[in-house]
């Protein structure tokens, strides 16, 4: 009896990636490293990125080759990770060209995206997809300026996943135009899926170990370094602080430290999840983590999650996604006038050991909600839920693109004909019209033959 091997689901995985010669500062590259080893056991994955280098031992290709690969051996799903980062621009454009699933690490963006999509016809494309009777709009139409959010990307996806609960809510509130499917209403799957973390150990420390503050925010005002330093300066300017910042911000970070007169700040200009993990796991310190980010843009993942997993006392801003974290697991700081006073009070309590933090509760919570195994399982489940919709989507999207190709070729031919008719052969007598028409027809046929020979066929 022969054994039938079930074909694995084929996924085209679009993401910036970490390469030996160049690491990426994106969340997408980090989650790709963490999740693909697990997902590849279940799915046949090809990694598409914006370069030509091989990514580890995965099937790898430049994202512009995806369409040609798809035509030869169709993928079941295109999976995109999208975030507010220049390295993600190619994804922001391409996820609207070959729709699939999108994992939004950001839903609100600080830019409108790469220039070619500033005048994206996505609403018309959605309408065309949803209705067989719709034609493509005439070229040159200028659409009204859109807000800087993922409404285009979400509208052109069949599975929407959000690494922040609040982004999930924003999407539900703002997206009005989406691909619809005939079989069932509301077939777009939409869910929260946090950024995963690796196994993080709780650091061992003694009660006598020295207290220190760990911070990995940017110098930009929304990361509240100035509020934190103000609090530390008021408490004790010699309090040990470790600031994990980006290399680009090193100089600005040094200036900020000087401004507040802090004397024991160790500045590490090598911001990365791996380095943060080393810090939170480091023995011999009573570490406290500050993730007091206050903005609708960006997020604190995976740094905050790692701090929780290590069981560190953790300060966060009571804003946005903070409501989804239990009050008992973090110290929530209300942004505003009393912000630095609140921070100072919390640090004082922790320093004096007047407050006991149940580190194991935070660690258990983090493991349960953010472990890479858990996230991988949930993602896999979501992908499989989306599969029935995907086959319908692929078929109809293919039809839409065939119509687009026809229109492109017809236009190229019609420009030629128009010039031939109007400019070269002005109409005079019936006889001349007949000769003209047959000349034009012949020219048109010749052009079509050349198009055929080049493979420019409908």
């Amino acid at each position: 009896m022969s054994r039938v091997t079930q074909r694995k689901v084929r996924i085209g995985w679009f993401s910036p990636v970490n390469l030996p010669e160049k690491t990426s500062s994106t969340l997408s590259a980090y989650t790709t490293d963490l999740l693909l080893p697990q997902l590849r056991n279940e799915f046949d994955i090809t990694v598409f990125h914006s370069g030509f280098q091989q990514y580890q031992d995965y099937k790898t290709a430049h994202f512009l080759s995806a369409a040609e690969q798809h035509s030869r051996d169709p993928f079941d799903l295109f999976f995109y990770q999208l975030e507010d980062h220049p390295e993600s621009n190619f994804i922001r454009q391409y996820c609207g060209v070959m729709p699939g699933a999108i994992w939004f690490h950001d839903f609100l963006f600080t830019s409108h995206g790469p220039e070619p999509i500033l005048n994206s016809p996505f609403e018309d494309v959605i309408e065309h997809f949803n209705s067989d009777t719709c034609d493509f709009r005439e070229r040159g139409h200028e659409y009204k300026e859109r807000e800087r959010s993922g409404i285009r990307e979400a509208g052109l996806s069949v599975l929407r996943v959000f690494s922040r609960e609040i982004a999930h809510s924003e999407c539900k509130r703002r997206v009005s135009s989406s691909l619809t499917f005939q079989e069932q209403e509301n077939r777009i799957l939409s869910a929260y899926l946090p950024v995963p973390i690796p196994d993080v150990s709780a650091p061992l420390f003694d009660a006598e170990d020295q207290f220190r503050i760990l911070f990995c925010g940017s110098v930009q005002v929304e990361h509240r370094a100035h509020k934190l330093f103000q609090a530390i300066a008021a408490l004790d300017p010699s309090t040990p602080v470790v600031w994990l910042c980006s290399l680009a911000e090193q100089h600005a970070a040094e200036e900020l430290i000087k401004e507040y007169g802090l004397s024991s700040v160790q500045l590490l200009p090598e911001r990365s999840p791996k380095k943060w993990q080393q810090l939170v796991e480091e023995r011999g310190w009573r570490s406290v983590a500050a993730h007091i980010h206050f903005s609708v843009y960006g997020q604190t993942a995976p740094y905050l999650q790692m701090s929780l997993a290590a069981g560190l006392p953790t300060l966060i801003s009571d804003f946005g996604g903070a409501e989804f974290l239990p009050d008992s697991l973090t110290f929530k700081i209300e942004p505003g006038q009393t912000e630095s006073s609140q921070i100072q009070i919390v640090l004082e309590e922790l320093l004096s050991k007047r407050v006991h933090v149940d580190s194991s509760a935070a660690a258990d919570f983090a493991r349960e909600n953010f472990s890479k195994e858990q996230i991988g399982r949930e993602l896999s489940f979501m992908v499989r839920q989306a599969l029935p919709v995907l086959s319908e989507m692929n078929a109809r999207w293919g039809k839409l693109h065939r119509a687009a190709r026809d229109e492109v070729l017809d236009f190229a031919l019609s420009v030629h004909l128009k010039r031939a008719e109007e400019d070269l052969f002005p109409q005079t007598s019936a006889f001349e019209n007949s000769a003209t028409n047959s000349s034009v027809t012949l020219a048109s046929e010749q052009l079509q033959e050349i198009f055929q020979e080049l493979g420019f066929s409908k």
Partner: protein
Amino acid sequence: MANILVLGAKVPFTSGGQEILVSTLIRELKARDHRVDLVDLPYQALPKEDLLRQAAYWRSIDFTSFGETKVDLVIATKFPTYYAKHPKKSLWLVHQHRPAYDLYAGRYSDISDDPRDEQFRQLIVQGDNKVIAECEYISGISKNVIERLQHYNQIVGEVLYPPLPMGNSYRTGEFQDYILSVGRLCSIKRVDLMLKAMPIVHGHVKLKIVGTPDEPGIMEYFQNEIAKHSLQSRIEFLGRVSEEDLLSLFANALGVFYAPHNEDYGYVTLEAFASGKPVLTAHDSGGVLEFVHHEQNGLILEPTIDAFGHAANRLVENKPFAEELGKNGKAFIEKEFSGAGWDRVIERLLSPLQGIGTERESIHIQSSQIVNG
């Protein structure tokens, strides 16, 4: 002696590296007693669908003979000239339709997420794959161009650097207080980087710009920036200049600004070196980086106004340093770009006439070999 057609595509009323390449190639072919002519059809980038028709038009022309004159070889250069059909076709690739390739999803591409644009892009790639592969000999003007061809189209070619357009005429003069910029005035050449850096640069230093605009609105944009910072007395737009004037401008510059985005090749780099002048460029300037080495013969910078302003000041404040960089650039030219030069280029381009077209099967990227040197 062979009858050879060189195929060019030109936007009327503009001029740049392509025209220099084509004209010098024709000059050198004629000097070797070949019968040569140029077929130079007008090129129009918009509407983009029209590019398919232009490609097909090249395809529709019978290049095998004209009257009683048999054409032995055609040499194609840039898109869409290589769509021409001929049994003996050589390609000296200047560039493909880059918005469909390396410029995609960036500010220099007009290919959006409209399904028609995506189909247009796929048709271009499909067409390029077919017609380039039928060339008997495939080469490109730089490693950057050849690597693009391999990466995006999986076609292998040879690097064939164009020799300097004015041969041995370049000379080193003084190091006067101006930065020179040479090239078409369009956004991808990023002349605005240097222009906007001038407020940072010492006040007695000028920026001299050779080249004509070929993008709507570009001069208005430049004039706006000049007015904003009151730079009227420090920026000179020289337009098109004679060869002698250009040689003189190179000869007496303090340094040469050349920092386009992912440039194909960049004659200007080598012209600066041949004149003994350092080049200020950016780390994303593509083909330019095949020649410029940071702090050896030029400065490779972040593509920011600050970086270029401070770099220019470095040259102003330390002229011996600028001279040292320039000297190294000149030595580079003397070592790598003298010698075989055009003889080698023409030998390779005419190789299909020797019936050695099958060599293209075994042509590999020779990234360390400078073929014309």
